[in-house]
């Protein structure tokens, strides 16, 4: 049984629980977070960061799906 990406059910990459596309999106989210912090010169909460990304048209659909997945996980954890 091949492990599936929880976002899209495609096969996972070895480094992550995500598939290659969503893993790439996740890495870009991480990299982007650092850029956002530097850009605003203050602490930007992940909540605000995600909130902005979800609302922006420029944000890729895979990025939005990963964020939705993270939010769902958070709801499950709550």
């Amino acid at each position: 049984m091949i492990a599936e990406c929880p976002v899209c059910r495609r096969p996972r990459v070895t480094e992550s629980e995500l598939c290659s596309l969503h893993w790439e999106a996740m890495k870009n989210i991480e990299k982007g977070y650092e850029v956002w912090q530097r850009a605003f010169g203050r602490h930007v909460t992940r909540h605000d960061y995600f909130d902005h990304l979800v609302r922006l048209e420029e944000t890729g659909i895979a990025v939005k799906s990963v964020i939705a997945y993270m939010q769902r996980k958070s709801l499950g954890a709550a």
Partner: protein
Amino acid sequence: MATTLIVTEKPDAALHVAEALSHNDSPKRIVVDGVPFFEAHDNARRILVCSALGHLYGVAAKQTHAQSQYPIWEFTWKPKHLVQRGQERQKKWLEAISKVSEQADRFIDACDFDLEGSLIGYMVLKYACRGADQRAQRMKFSTLTETELRDAYANALPSLNFPLVFAGMCRHEVDWLFGINLSRALTQSALKFSGRYATLSTGRVQGPTLRFLVERQREIEAFVPTPYWALSVKVEVDGRVVAANYEDDRLEREGDAQEVVQACAGKSGVVETLDSTNYDLAPPTPFDLPTLQAEAFRHLGLSPRISLGIAERLYLDQLISYPRTSSQKLPHSIGYEKIVRSLGKQNNYRTVAADLLAMGKLVPNEGKKDDPAHPAVYPTGTLPRRRLDRREERLYDLVVRRFLSSFGRAAVRRSDKATINVADHYFLLRGSRLVERAWTTIYKPYARFDDIILPPLKVGQPVHVRDIQSEEKFTQPPPHYNPSSLLRKMEDMDIGTKATRAEIVDTLYKRGYATGQQISSTPLGSRIIEILINHCPKVVDVTFTRELETKIEEIERGSETREHVVSQTLDYLKPIIEALKGQEKEIGRELTALLTEMREESTSLLTPCPHCGSRLKIAKNPHTKKRFIGCSGKWKNNCNYTLPLPQLGSLNLLAKLCPNCGFQLIQVKSRGRRSLTSCSRCYVEKARPAHSVPELTASGTAKRS
């Protein structure tokens, strides 16, 4: 009576050749078994002109194989009607040509002088005319005008251009080997695994081209925008308010932008430097096909395939020269003055033509690209004999204006730049305008230059900052390819040919691998590439394809042989296909999953159930027949989450999420009504729910608190 048989590529071309060779008489139309021939006379010699119907022969397996069998390495050339269904007309055509050829003692190939045309003529002469290829002559022309056709007939080349023929054969053979083996490997893998048949294809150029789309799509889908700030500034100079730019187009920190705003708001500064330069804008080069297609897409909105089709019609109507050319050069022998004078007879070009002729000697601004077979695309000067439709008219105008403007004088553009110092921050005022319009007036509808004129300025002149604002912006994802930029990419990567690229892009649409004018790869296209990269990356690698193009060009030049290139292709392809065959089960499993997913995709939402995280699907109540969104975790998680859906119209799950709640948007289309896009979740919940967001870890998992 001594008879010459001339073979052309298309029926329209046959008529033009016959008309040109009939001098003042109309050619006689003879019908043999339902196939038209045109008869003309050259002194005591009878001339019969016939046409092919594009390719009448194609590559096929040497022996008959079951549809499922692969690999297939042995091939031969066969009449198309023997290997393809629905080719009855082609069969009739070949039989008639063969019958009439028995009367001929002289043969001339008058098909288009390029790879495909040379191959079409060669096959008809070799097979339908029983070996006439060895004694046939070749007419070489770039327009279907009477003068050029008569000249090409009188000075027919003594033999066919065999290097061009062999290059054409090689391209078809290699593409066939790739296409049949790779496509069967994919189709059979899926069929053997699931027992279901689905046509899946890839090819030598198609695979790498699709890969460009998929990689771009991936970049867009995984794109995270980052903020930057741009300063918009208005300064008052000599009582006039003008827009200026900060020296840095983008500031990457909000603090830096605010600092400049605070330092400069309401302050005065001075003009510190002034710089003006005049530079020449050379006239455009004559059209090669890729540039014609790019301009037609940009200015007329015509896809490359459509613009090529229209250009070919204009060529067959004797209005322009042969469009499938790589050349940006116009030899003097085409008769510049004569063409310009003829174009001047048309109202639209009267003034322009007169101005050009008054310049004296006409010299076009030729580009670097050359094509040994044909010059750049140019108008013949012949007046249209029929009313052109709107698109034909516009493309014709583009070709004419491009041709005329290439003879124009260089335009001169003046660029003005002023540096303003405000509290040691530098702002730029930029102006530019055409000071000599020259060729731009000829190419006017397609040459767009905006003039920005600065007020008179002096060094040391005081300037007051009227308004300065920092605007938050975000980086943009790379753009989708459009049909024109994808063609340009293929050309830059040196894959495909000017004649085949547009067709390959079209195939991607037909196969369901690509969609939209701003081209996106579909999930099917993306997954096919993913599977091929995982199991056989060489298939979608541009390197081999690019090398092959070079070798085919070498065959054209006579420095490489077709047999050698085909043999090298087989050496390259055999281990690939064997490897694919060895992985049939794995590939079949992935393809089956993909096909199943595709079927499910049309009814499954991207966003999961907010209650249990299971997949949401569009479902129908078996009793009421009403449709709704339901949770697939109903049985597993006892989840009863549902959302209502509009009951009328067709539903389309958009690749867009609701800006309020992140739920997937749904579009409803009803006949005679505007489409409606809505979010089912917001519709029900009315307000956006508060989501708490977890911390991300490096592996992409969420930390649970």
